[in-house]
């Protein structure tokens, strides 16, 4: 017996997909925690020893062991770990004895600011470069953007940072050095500024401290520019290939035959359709920048999440390292999923 399916609203399949995405998100999140849990358990250092020090008595050790749940079977320990993480308990830093979550959330805005500015710059440069390259394939412009992009893929980001400092800070003195502000302004940051967001450019603007804004800008522009270069390499390459694909479509020919100006064909008609897959690419490069910031932040003494992780690494502060890893991992997974969802929302063809 066949029955004609009742007309459904388009919302239900979409909701089902979102539900599926949430399940995937959770499974991936569990996977992330499984890996960090595994890492923290193969660690050769006894966690009890590192908390109590070497002079603790046998009884104190046993008591701490019990309290930390180290006598439980491994799967139960993992359950406790997942539960703690879901409640926002990422452990306590060995170095500072502060909760890791608190320290990480203080550091996060600096990384967010850096990665956001870099992505904005990368999109502003990369998308037009990719579009122009696609309209004149094989031209000098096309070849040089390709080469510049490949060069971006080939340079160690920490070396690029050092060279940037050497040239623009040491020689030309165009930009501020390491850190987010000059030392003088650093004081007024803590005492005179209301910190709304933790992102210096926004905070200084909201406080109407434009002198400080200019100083902060001179500090952020070099690391952001370097990260932007790397994301531009990726974005321009992808834009070019999407655009090439789009320009071969029949509706483009139709528009041209109708006598539409070429500029309008490319920048309005074709680009509008290219924006859909580009959203995915931009979200991915944003996620990648959160990670790429690790080495850049180390070079520029940028007080973000990346330098938090590397600083903690140097003193073997494993709770801090793993807590930072979990936070970056969650941001990374979240951005991946978000790009997937956006893609489905924007592109009707992806809604099955």
């Amino acid at each position: 017996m066949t029955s004609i399916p009742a007309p459904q609203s388009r919302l239900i399949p979409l909701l089902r997909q979102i539900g599926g995405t949430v399940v995937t998100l959770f499974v991936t999140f569990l996977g992330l925690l499984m890996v960090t849990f595994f890492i923290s358990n193969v660690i050769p250092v006894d966690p009890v020893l590192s908390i109590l020090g070497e002079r603790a008595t046998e009884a104190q050790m046993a008591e701490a062991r019990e309290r930390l749940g180290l006598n439980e079977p491994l799967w139960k320990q993992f359950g406790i770990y997942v539960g703690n993480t879901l409640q926002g308990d990422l452990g306590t830093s060995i170095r500072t004895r502060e909760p890791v979550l608190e320290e990480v959330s203080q550091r996060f805005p600096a990384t967010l600011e850096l990665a956001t500015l870099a992505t904005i710059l990368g999109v502003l440069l990369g998308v037009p470069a990719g579009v122009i390259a696609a309209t004149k394939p094989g031209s000098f412009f096309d070849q040089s953007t390709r080469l510049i992009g490949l060069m971006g893929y080939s340079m160690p980001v920490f070396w690029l940072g050092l060279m940037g400092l050497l040239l623009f800070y040491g020689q030309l003195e165009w930009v501020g050095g390491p850190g987010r502000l000059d030392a003088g302004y650093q004081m007024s940051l803590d005492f005179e500024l209301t910190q709304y967001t933790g992102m210096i450019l926004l905070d200084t603007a909201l406080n109407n401290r434009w002198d400080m804004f200019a100083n902060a800008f001179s500090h952020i522009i070099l690391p952001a520019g370097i990260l932007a270069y790397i994301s531009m390499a990726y974005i321009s390459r992808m834009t070019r290939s999407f655009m090439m694909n789009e320009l071969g479509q029949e509706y483009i020919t139709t528009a041209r035959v109708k006598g539409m100006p070429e500029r309008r064909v490319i920048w309005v008609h074709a680009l509008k359709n290219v924006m859909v897959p580009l959203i995915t690419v931009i979200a991915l490069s944003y996620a990648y920048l959160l990670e790429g910031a690790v080495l850049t932040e180390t070079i520029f003494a940028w007080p973000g999440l990346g330098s938090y992780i590397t600083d903690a690494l140097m003193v073997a502060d494993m709770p801090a390292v793993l807590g930072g890893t979990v936070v970056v991992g969650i941001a990374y997974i979240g951005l991946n999923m978000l790009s997937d969802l956006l893609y489905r929302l924007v592109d009707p063809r992806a809604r099955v």
Partner: protein
Amino acid sequence: MSTLTTWLRDPNPASRMQSRLGQSYLSWLRLRRNPLAMIGLLITAALLFVAIFAPLLAPHEPITQELGRRLLPPGTPGNILGTDDFGRDILSRILYGSRITLYIVLLVILTAPVVGLIIGTVAGYFGGWTDTILMRITDIFLAFPKLILALALVAVLGPGMENAVLAIALTSWPPYARVARAETLTVRNSDYIAAVKLQGAGPIRIIWGHVIPMCLPSVIIRVTLDMAGVILTAAGLGFLGLGVQPPLPEWGLMISAGRKFLFEQWWVATMPGLAIFIVSLGFNLLGDGLRDVLDPKSASK
């Protein structure tokens, strides 16, 4: 020579080897037309050459310290690229460092693609639950920030070259599994696999002998494109002091040593970085060209 090219171009090859060599020859002709790819090939060949003959090419010992000749600028007679803070010749250290770089790259490309190939082909060939579970694991690893995971792994395992290699390999196999699975799905239901099956071949033999060879071209392209990434990650770990340990002349480590006096003696940090840049660019140019030649789908035409 001309008889060789006629033999290679023979439209009716007499043996399987002749046909294969003829195919490679045609690919080579196409690759030769791409100047950027040829530059990449040249750089890669130079890296191999330098790594093999480092003791003959290097003017000084890479590790011997000569404190009387500290921090000499580039162009000093006997030390063309200058010396570092222990009076070691930077050029010699870079030349010897190519061995470490090549060693790391080889170890990674002998492990990560193999693991990825096995997981991908098994998942694609068996399908069903095997596929779902293996690909879910792959996706989980793909969703991780690679460098940070490698950092955390090395932090636990302890710094050192072997652990750095292990960490890089553990974080770089998932894309290979994806590629191999996609290729497997396209050949799984083809007639020749069915024929082999009818002859009584088991899954291991089919995957090993008939599926994996079909996946190799796409995996090789991916490997060439990944090599630059491996070099950069290894250098990053070295830079943070988590990879190769001093006094070995690893390029990332050399940059971090030069960081202390970047503004006074710029060459100590600059020169090894240039070496990394040139070598990675070589791999990227070659990989880009190879992809255009071997994989017509993604050719940039």
